[in-house]
């Protein structure tokens, strides 16, 4: 019993360690002063108000949204098909293929970034949002595959067989039975892969050229102490957006696994 109590206490301290740093950003973004230190001088929304008038920031936001949306769709589409193959079929090279698509999770960022830069330049693709999209699709793919795999895992094959048995064609079956049932998984995958891309920095830093994404923009602002409060405000908004997206994604993921019970 003493051990259990100790573990629980430790667990709460650990949660504090995980959350406190992240919570300091929003806290100080409302601070009426330019130095990030206690005591807090006063409360203000000024830093948030100023964000709206920064054109480069708006452009970076648009870039990030674009890159995120396209990479999310590309990686989810590929993940959807691959996951279906892994769950439904046995085929030669399946294990190698499954291992390979998870590789982007563990390759050091700097190596992916530098090697893609070199590759794209050699292929005549200048650093640009297109290059970033290709890179982010690569990084997000393992997440899409993992989420779609669990969506298909919960999916009873006999439902498809029943649809075929009742006279649907293969395409109809996919559209009328498979797709609606795994739809929550797809939404969840889109949200998660979007978040991966939206938050990614190193690859975008190497590949975005003169079209910065939001994290690259933030990186450029971090050096200027005068801009610090604005950066905090922007960062807080990003935190909020990421967490919201994840919670919504989790909601959909759970719905996909509950829908068949």
């Amino acid at each position: 019993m003493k051990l259990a109590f100790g573990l629980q206490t430790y667990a709460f301290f650990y949660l504090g360690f995980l959350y406190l740093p992240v919570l300091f950003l929003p806290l100080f973004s409302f601070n009426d002063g330019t130095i990030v230190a206690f005591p807090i001088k006063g409360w203000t929304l000024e830093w948030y108000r100023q964000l709206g008038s920064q054109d480069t920031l708006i452009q970076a936001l648009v870039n990030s949204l674009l890159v995120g949306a396209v990479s999310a769709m590309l990686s989810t589409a590929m993940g959807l098909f691959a996951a279906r193959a892994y769950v439904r079929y046995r085929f030669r090279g399946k294990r190698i293929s499954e291992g390979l698509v998870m590789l982007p999770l563990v390759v050091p960022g700097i190596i992916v970034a530098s090697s893609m830069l070199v590759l794209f330049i050699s292929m005549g693709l200048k650093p640009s949002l297109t290059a970033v999209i290709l890179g982010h699709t690569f990084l997000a793919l393992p997440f899409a595959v993992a989420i779609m795999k669990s969506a298909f895992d919960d999916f009873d094959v006999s439902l498809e067989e029943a649809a075929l048995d009742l006279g649907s064609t293969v395409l109809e079956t996919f559209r009328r039975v498979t797709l609606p049932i795994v739809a929550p998984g797809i939404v969840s995958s889109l949200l998660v892969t979007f978040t991966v891309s939206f938050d990614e920095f190193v690859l975008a830093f190497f590949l975005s050229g003169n079209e910065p994404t939001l994290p690259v923009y933030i990186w450029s602002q971090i050096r200027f102490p005068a801009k610090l409060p604005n950066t905090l405000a922007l960062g807080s908004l990003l935190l909020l957006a990421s967490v919201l997206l994840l919670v919504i994604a989790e909601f959909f993921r759970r719905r996909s696994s509950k829908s068949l019970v």
Partner: protein
Amino acid sequence: MNLRSEGAKGVALSAPATVYVGFLVAAPLLILVAYSMWTQTYVDIDRTPTLANYREAFTDPLVRHLMIRSILIAAAVTVVTVALAYPIAYFIAIRAQKKTLWLLLITIPFWSSYLLRVFAWKLILGFNGVLNSALLALGLIDEPLTFLLYNEFAVVLTLAHAWAPFAILPIFVSIQKIDPSLLEAATDLGSSRIESFLRVTLPLTLPGIIAACLVIFIPTVGDYVTPSLVGGSDGKMIANLIQVQFGAANNWPLGATLSLLAMLSVGFVAIVFVLSANGFGRRIR
């Protein structure tokens, strides 16, 4: 779908993802190898094959120093992160009432931008930062602590924070998979709590521990953001040097060489680690 066999359907469906990842892993690698044997001459690249870059990388003490430091820091991060995470994974798998809630709570901070989390640590650990000002205000210290930021300690702390969920999840899964009757059997055969942990739980969760170590160690060696923001000059790592070659120094061939060497060293250390960890696991009886 006219594909006849199951196998063909599987191959066809998984092909886009496999080819995409395969291409983006293999092609850059080949080009990196090619680049590493070329030479940068101002803005042009001399494509005569040479091993000069490797010679430079091996003889330059800075490269060796940064490489060793990167590996040591990554190893320290791995040990700290896994050691801190194991009790949490154990708690969630065995004791916690609401497992999914705990797992969600653990993963949420990880979904915020990595860059921002590192940035937050910079603000916390700084000379005039959150921690120092708080301690000063509370009267616990008279002047700001200087050992917090811009050194290896800051890098290890920040990275251990950033990689926490990656350590917790695989260990949680491996603990969760243990059949509770195995632990009862150990008790029944006379083991105390600690003995059954060391002789049953630990060896059975070894695969999870190894997975966690690899997932943390490999990317950490090549981390760029953390050493740049909180490492100062004492905490710089190999990624910073590589970035300089592709940026300010504009020496892509040397950058390519360093990337390849970093990858090889990581691979080598990882293999040695897995082999020795498994060997250790087999000796527990």
